[in-house]
């Protein structure tokens, strides 16, 4: 067995009041992918920051290529050959691709000036080796998120990094783009790089990783080889208990149609969208990122106005001109962009929850705080919100608990239809299970749920029927019985027509 390139031993890091990491170790081997697995708050980000020189450990040792060293700054980590590709890539939109790749280590000519010719040529060579199909001379802002990731990888190659950290690199990518990323990771492996791969998604981990390390509450609780370990064992390590059913059983009785969309169209985003959701039903919307699912849902919620088509709720045509209209009609929307659209982070939990229900908690327009606290308590406790008090600022909650606040806010309005847009994106597995469990509970109580999701297991595990969208149109609506996941992926990507891409 080869020696690891990078070894962390006995790393401890404490923040005021919180022990983020306690005596953890990690080895990264050349030419192998190690998956770092753990719930949100398990200490993964802290570890990445220590490896990239942003935080200093209180105790412990970092060894790179057999030499013990400290990484006092981000630049020293960079010089030691450690680089990170983040969820939201830290690159510069206004610079060209080549400038982004060589920022901070641009080749110099003999006058000490940047050697633009070499820089462009080298960039082109690297990008071609990756089969990225990117012109190094265009500005970064002209690229999509997936291509930006490729630029980040090219940057990692150009600095000849020995250790590449990928922090949830697939979070914003479509299935096809993820496949392209896998090819790149294989390329990096062949090159002998050690890769640390952080992800919430098990299918990815099993597809790409060779080894795994599991963190829980700032401690390392297990590690091993992926090929010798079952998914359920890793889940057990993560949560410290065995999770019997990942998706809850649903026993909802499906009733008549509640909301029907007929031929909704938008000048640029989507066309001819028709679907119906019934009482007690979970209707899944699957598709690649950019297929127009969120845009359709925001039109149903009154954020944007469709140019054609109509919405029928309980047999009556409705025409929501704003979210306020939609909420009054009984349609609510849990947006994908939780931090920007879902919660008001500067305000406490109870104000977030009561905001759409003020009409109910107030008396002739005057606030009644006691009623607001009561309302907030009722619904946050149903969702098992973890907080110290109802006046705690929402910005101090974890992603999963913020999502619970958004859902609690809408349940308090007693809606008929609840639309969830990527409801479990970026939240830990414990909160994920809570959200799934709650969706099952909602339909059992006779609500209709529309769930937009790009996660196949979630769509297949939760939906009664699945609408597949591609490029702004509905490709098919399927009953979720005995479906093969491949069918959905093929429909969403349009592979059947493109002669087996």
């Amino acid at each position: 067995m080869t020696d690891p390139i990078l070894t962390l031993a006995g790393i401890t890091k404490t923040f005021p009041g919180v022990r983020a990491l306690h005596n953890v170790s990690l080895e990264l081997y050349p030419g192998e992918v190690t998956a770092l697995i753990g719930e949100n708050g398990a200490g993964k980000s802290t570890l990445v920051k220590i490896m990239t020189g942003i935080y200093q450990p209180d105790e412990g040792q970092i060894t790179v290529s057999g030499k013990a060293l400290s990484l006092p700054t981000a630049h020293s980590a960079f010089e030691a050959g450690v680089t990170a590709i983040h969820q939201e890539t830290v690159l510069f939109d206004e610079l060209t691709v080549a400038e982004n790749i060589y920022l901070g280590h641009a080749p110099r000519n003999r006058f000490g000036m940047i050697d633009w010719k070499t820089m462009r040529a080298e960039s082109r060579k690297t990008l071609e080796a990756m089969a990225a199909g990117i012109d190094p001379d265009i500005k970064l802002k002209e690229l999509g998120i997936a291509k930006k990731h490729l630029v980040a990888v090219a940057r990692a190659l150009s600095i000849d990094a020995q250790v590449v950290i990928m922090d949830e690199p697939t979070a914003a990518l479509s299935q096809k783009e993820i496949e392209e990323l896998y090819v790149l990771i294989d390329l990096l492996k062949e090159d002998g790089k050690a890769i640390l791969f952080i992800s919430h998604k098990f299918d990815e981990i099993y597809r790409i990783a060779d080894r795994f390390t599991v963190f829980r509450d700032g401690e390392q609780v297990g590690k091993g080889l992926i090929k010798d370990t079952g998914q359920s064992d890793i889940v057990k390590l993560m949560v410290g208990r065995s999770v019997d059913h990942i998706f809850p059983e649903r026993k909802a009785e499906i009733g008549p149609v509640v909301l029907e969309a007929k031929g909704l169209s938008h000048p640029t985003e989507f066309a001819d969208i028709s679907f119906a959701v019934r009482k007690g039903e979970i209707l899944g919307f699957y598709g690649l990122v950019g297929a127009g699912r969120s845009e359709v849902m925001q039109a149903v919620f009154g954020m944007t106005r469709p140019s054609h088509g109509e919405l029928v709720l309980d047999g009556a045509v409705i025409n929501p001109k704003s979210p306020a209209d939609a909420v009054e009609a009984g349609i609510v929307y849990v947006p994908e962009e939780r931090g920007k659209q879902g919660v008001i982070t500067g305000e406490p939990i109870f104000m977030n929850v009561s905001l759409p229900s003020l009409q109910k908690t107030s008396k002739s327009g005057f606030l009644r705080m006691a009623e607001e606290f009561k309302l907030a308590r009722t619904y946050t406790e149903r969702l098992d919100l973890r907080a110290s008090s109802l006046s705690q600022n929402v910005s101090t909650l974890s992603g999963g608990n913020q999502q619970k606040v958004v859902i609690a806010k809408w349940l308090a309005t007693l809606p008929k239809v609840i639309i969830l847009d990527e409801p479990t994106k970026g939240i830990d597995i414990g909160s994920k299970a809570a959200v799934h469990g709650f969706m099952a509970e909602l339909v059992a109580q006779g609500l209709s749920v529309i769930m937009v999701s790009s996660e196949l297991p979630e769509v297949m595990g939760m939906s009664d029927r699945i609408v597949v969208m591609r490029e702004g149109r509905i490709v098919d609506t399927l009953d979720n019985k005995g479906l093969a996941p491949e069918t959905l992926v093929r429909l969403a990507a349009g592979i059947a027509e493109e002669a087996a891409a």
Partner: protein
Amino acid sequence: MSDVTTGRQLPNRLDNPLKSTLLSWESLLVLVAVVIFVFNSYSSPYFLNEWSLSDMTFNFTEKALIALAMALLIISGEIDLSVAAIIALASTMMGLALQYGADTPVLVAVGVGVGLLCGAFNGFLVTGLKLPSIVVTIGTMSLFRGIAFIVLGDKSFGNYPASFGWFGQGYVWWVISFELVLFLVFAAVYFVLLHRTNFGRRVFAIGNNDVAAQFSGVRVDRIKFILFCLTGLMSGIAAVLLTARLGSTRPSIAEGFELEAITMVVLGGVSILGGAGSIVGVVLAALIMGLVTFGLGLLNVPGIVMSIFIGGLLITVIALPILFRMWRQRA
């Protein structure tokens, strides 16, 4: 993550309300007001006199009336720089109405009505056409005052009836002026509106994050439009008081009022970025501004020095809350 696992029952709040009141910005303002009051009493023998103190209130009531509505507007994340120009236009229209023989009730209606219309115009440009309020109101600032200049030229309107003059010069009881009473009544109204109603709660939500507020079913544009109308309305009321007090209208009337009103709002602890603030703070800030300018006046400090002082104060108070919050976070 600072999530704390608790039992089933989540408490309403954990902080000590008495302690947070004592540590608040408002308590600091009370302290400052007391210090300036004591300083003024020592520095001038004419200060501690009921008529002097009554005169002092005229230094801030008109601007403070605007500051009340401006506070809500700034909390919602918008701003109105045209308030002084609205006064000029409203005052000019009152003067014009006087030329056509209007009596006191009509004059008041014209002043208040013009203010409301100007505010609605600002509100329409910002919410209807989605233009940034700072640009819109810089534009309408020139527009409104420009109209006043065209109507008046280098002339002025005067000879307002005595019954009209009472609004700016009259006393309700003893040394308590009508202006002061009106200000206190409106301060109470705005306090309730901002801190005790659904409307006020929504204003805070919009100021914190207007996108999320809209996604939460708040009619953001409607509320912002109402806030611009309220600011215009208060400027109209201020125009009535100021015109009545001066007894004449010139196109340069109320120049610089917008800066002083905004200074009061920011000194009162309202975040210039929106989302936070209180009416109590704004009222205290108005009092402090009145005490300071009146004290400087008693010491025969020339007007130009006073305007340097106001400019300096504005910069200081924008920096101070930020430093204060940094200090509180560490505490």
